[in-house]
């Protein structure tokens, strides 16, 4: 047990060090998110009423795209330089290592989105209630995206044209998260209460936490053949 947590902690620490070493890489996701959200008013025009309707959708779509793009970095670097190969050969259970990598990846590419989203929501004139639910829905939803994404990223490692494939594989599974995430904010703004949506997102998170590390680990072993 202690060796498991030690391995988990080691992987998380490693990936975070790496991310900080190439700090710009971390910022990419965040920056991308901010750009997507902020470019829209530029393209669409500045009417507040339209913007407010769009807000939850735009923020959630941007978050989804940002995490989809960040997926490539989850395993590819390690695959490329042979450290992934080494990871498969350690005496630690692979799902634990995968969970560590996913967690680190989320800390670096998901959490910043959650933290900055309320700020961007203000740009779109969301009410405080809406901002809170937006952040909350992202807090529960983005880990699900990272977990599901890990499976897709692992499956497409080293495959011809991994890029689209990963989107093709992962997107169908992302859409429910998007619908319930954006739906939560909409519901709270129209006074219906976001409870139901948020608890469903929570259920997704639980399911993904239990299943995804195993699936991704199996996928990694297959991809490294």
């Amino acid at each position, binding site marked *: 047990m202690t060796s498991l947590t030690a391995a988990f902690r080691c992987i998380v620490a490693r990936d975070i060090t790496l991310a900080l070493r190439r700090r710009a890489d971390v910022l990419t996701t965040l920056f991308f998110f901010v750009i997507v959200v902020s470019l829209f008013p530029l393209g669409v025009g500045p009417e507040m009423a339209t913007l407010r309707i769009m807000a939850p959708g735009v923020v959630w779509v941007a978050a989804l795209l940002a995490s989809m793009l960040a997926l490539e970095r989850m395993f590819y670097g390690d695959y490329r330089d042979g450290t992934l190969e080494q990871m498969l050969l350690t005496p630690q259970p692979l799902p634990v290592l995968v969970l560590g990598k996913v967690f680190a990846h989320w800390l670096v590419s998901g959490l910043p989105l959650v933290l900055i989203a309320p700020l961007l929501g203000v740009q779109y004139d969301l009410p405080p209630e809406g901002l809170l639910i937006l952040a909350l829905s992202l807090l529960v939803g983005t880990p699900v995206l990272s977990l599901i994404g890990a*499976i897709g990223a692992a*499956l*497409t490692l080293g*495959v*011809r*044209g991994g890029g689209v*494939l990963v989107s*093709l*594989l992962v*997107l*169908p*599974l992302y*859409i*429910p998260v998007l*619908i319930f995430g954006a739906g939560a904010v909409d519901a709270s703004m129209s006074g219906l209460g976001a409870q139901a949506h948020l608890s469903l997102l929570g259920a997704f998170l639980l*399911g993904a936490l239990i*299943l995804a590390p195993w*699936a991704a680990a*199996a*996928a990694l072993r*297959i*991809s490294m*053949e």
Partner: protein
Amino acid sequence: MAKKINWFKYSSPQTFYPLAGKMIPWFAVAALLFTLPGLYFSFFVAPPDYQQGEAYRIMFIHVPAAWMSMFIYMVMAGYAGMGLVLNSRLSSMMASALAPTGAMFTFLALWTGSLWGKPMWGAWWVWDARLTSELILLFLYIGFMSLYAAIDEPRRAARASAVLALVGVVNIPIIYFSVKWWNTLHQGSSITASKGPTMAASMFIAMMLMAMAFWMYTIAVALMRVRCEILERERHAEWVAEAMRGAK
């Protein structure tokens, strides 16, 4: 050990190939035998709907196609999982043989659904939970096939897409229960195990006949495809060369 050998005898591509060849005509004929009365019931026996008029006749292919799209996925995922766990080649070949047909039925469910939606709801498409999840199912099929095609090594391709198929299974209950869980435009199940059908008997019969026809068709086509798949993957094996020489 003896049991294992027995098992592998039946699941070996070499013995299955001629067996499948013999089964295809039977299923093809059965498909035809279900289709003809099915069409007769759909157009001439079932009465027009008091609300929808004649448009509801789309149901006789829409519903069976929608069922097939989900059933085939489950069967495919089952075979894929079996291939992954038991490492049997035939199972993964069956999985990849079912995928295109499943994708086709998914497409048909979407197509007939939107042709039905236009007169009934006034829109080709709405972002309703069931419609969206059926669309997701189509993406899952396409993803499965693309992943399979993108990997050169057939064994690796089969194993990787098996993982994907198994992960995608979570979508099936979402599609099935979507109408129950959320209040949506799409209508709920009218046939449940507990209550039986809640529609006119002739409509029910028509639907069942068409569903059986689709089933038989699917089996026939899947067997045809798995035979091609077997030949392609085992083309270097001795028995294929012999069979070819024998066929000459």
